[in-house]
């Protein structure tokens, strides 16, 4: 139970931290190595991109969790309460529908890469499909986060509390 709670709080953060640091670190170290010793690993221009894709899509889930995706807020903020509730619910439904579609087609992509034993350029045994997993995994996470927000919003609606209309741009 404790583990699940921790994961619920930190899963996106952990992935973002690890991938972001690794990606920055690899590029930094490899440029320095090229200057100092004239050598550079062949995978130093491929692996960071794949890490970046993980950061981007898991970051997308992280942003969705905080309802901070860029949007035009001025009209929604002036809608009547029930109108706001409908608009917020509409967001959730579209998120879920779009995510299901992405997962379906991205999974095909993973399957293809898995069947082909495609490896990352510049490496001997790093499989491409590990990285292709980024989109389906992230969108599955988005569905989960959107459900959480949806439950929260329904509870707010029942209790008559205000919704989160203004996107916080500051992160946490």
């Amino acid at each position: 139970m404790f583990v699940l709670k921790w994961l619920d709080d930190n899963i996106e953060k952990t992935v973002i931290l690890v991938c972001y640091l690794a990606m920055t670190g690899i590029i930094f170290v490899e440029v320095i190595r090229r200057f100092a010793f004239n050598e550079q690993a062949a995978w130093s221009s491929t692996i960071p991109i794949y890490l970046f894709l993980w950061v981007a899509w898991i970051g997308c889930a992280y942003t969705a969790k905080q309802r901070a995706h860029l949007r035009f807020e001025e009209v929604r903020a002036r809608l009547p309460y029930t109108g706001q509730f409908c608009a917020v619910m509409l967001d959730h439904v579209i998120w879920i529908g779009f995510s299901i579609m992405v997962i379906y087609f991205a999974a095909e992509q993973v399957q293809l890469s898995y069947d082909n034993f495609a490896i990352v350029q510049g490496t001997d045994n790093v499989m491409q499909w590990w990285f292709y997993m980024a989109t389906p995994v992230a969108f599955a996470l988005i569905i989960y986060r959107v459900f959480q927000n949806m439950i929260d919003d329904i509870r707010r609606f029942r209790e008559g509390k205000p919704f989160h209309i203004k996107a916080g741009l500051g992160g946490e």
Partner: protein
Amino acid sequence: MSDGVLIALISIGVTALFIIGVPIFLIIGLWVVGVSLVIDFTLANIGVTLYEGLNFFGLLALPLFILTGDLINNAGIAKRLVDFAYSVLGWVRGGMAMSALGACGLFAAISGSNSATTATIGSIMHPEMTKTGYDENFAAATAASGGTVGIIIPPSIIFIVYGFLMNLSISDLFLGGMIPGIIMVVAMQTVCWYMSKKHGWGTIQKLQINRILRASLGAWLGFFAIGLVVWGIYTGKFSPTEAAGVTAGFCLLVGIIMHPIARVLGVREDGSVEGLSAGKSIFVPGFAIRELPNIILRSGFITGMLVPLIAVSVVMQQILSLLGAKDFVTAMLANLGGYYPILFACMLLVLIAGTILESLPNTIILAPILAPIAAGIGVDPIHFAVVFLVGDAIGFITPPYGLNLYVASGITGIPYFRLLRYTVPYLIALLVAWLIIALIPDLSTALLFHDGAGVYQ
């Protein structure tokens, strides 16, 4: 119903969703899905492009420059740059606001994003400006407008995306943006000077060489970071992505190493150099290692907001080209004839699209359509890129959708619509600067090593 009618209906439908506040990522996503179904184009393309559309080494510079911006802010380097700008401009009426604009330019030279520039400089300068007698609305408008140079003064995220799309050298684009970025800053400073003089805002401090020297000593790390990026890219020692990685790594190490030293020496946490000896002022407050996760998460948050938008816009661009949007716009503009009518028509399109689209979708969707048209009438590709992107930058402060206005409103608590009114003088200044940049191609191409005309890498 014909496909055309259906596509028009879909477009109207998603615009309605945009108005009631559905996230832009989903708006573009829905449009793409809807139109793909209408023209019977495989949806599998979306699954592939959301991933492969981002699979490009140059794009990696984006998260790295975002991280750099957050690091220099947290390490207290941004505050030192602001202090430096103020020491230089403090003797003029309106000097504090003008130095906020100048600091935006300096910050933009290390980081690559508009909203980050607005957020950083705005949160440092807005309280100071309000304290010294500026109108608080004007002060917030200054931060919002000053942020627009964030994507023009290199390094810049949007130049990277533009170069990636249009197959132009990103280093050339960076060099092209330098002078126009400075022109934008000066244009806004002029307005700022005039407004402050008219209303008697702000205080005046004496111009002292001593103060400037002290402030530049305090800001040396910022200058070093700027120098590193410019030198690396200008000499071709590293690619923009590598430059971003090196600066990010450098700022990270500096921030961590300086933190304990600064504490021992008693450097103030807010980064102010007041009362410090010259020797001590070369140290910045830095940040503790335990703060690092939050800094990186903030960058991850921004990356997670912008990059999906890029991916989905790339899909939209593909669909538009399938629909023949380029031929349509070309045919429409061809009737105008002549160099200037077509250039101005392109600029008008960018500006109009920029009022509702975020800069990244705007670039990804419009640039592939307009750039070939401009090239066809003999506009230098680098020059056109700069003109296009300055228009894009102006879109950050044009209603209804102006991201910088949201950011400035968010950090200062001033309502969006009130902020809008106070931004008008800056908007006019930027439009004038834009015209100058468009009319004098040399401003964009003078720094290039070679004659940029038609040189696609």
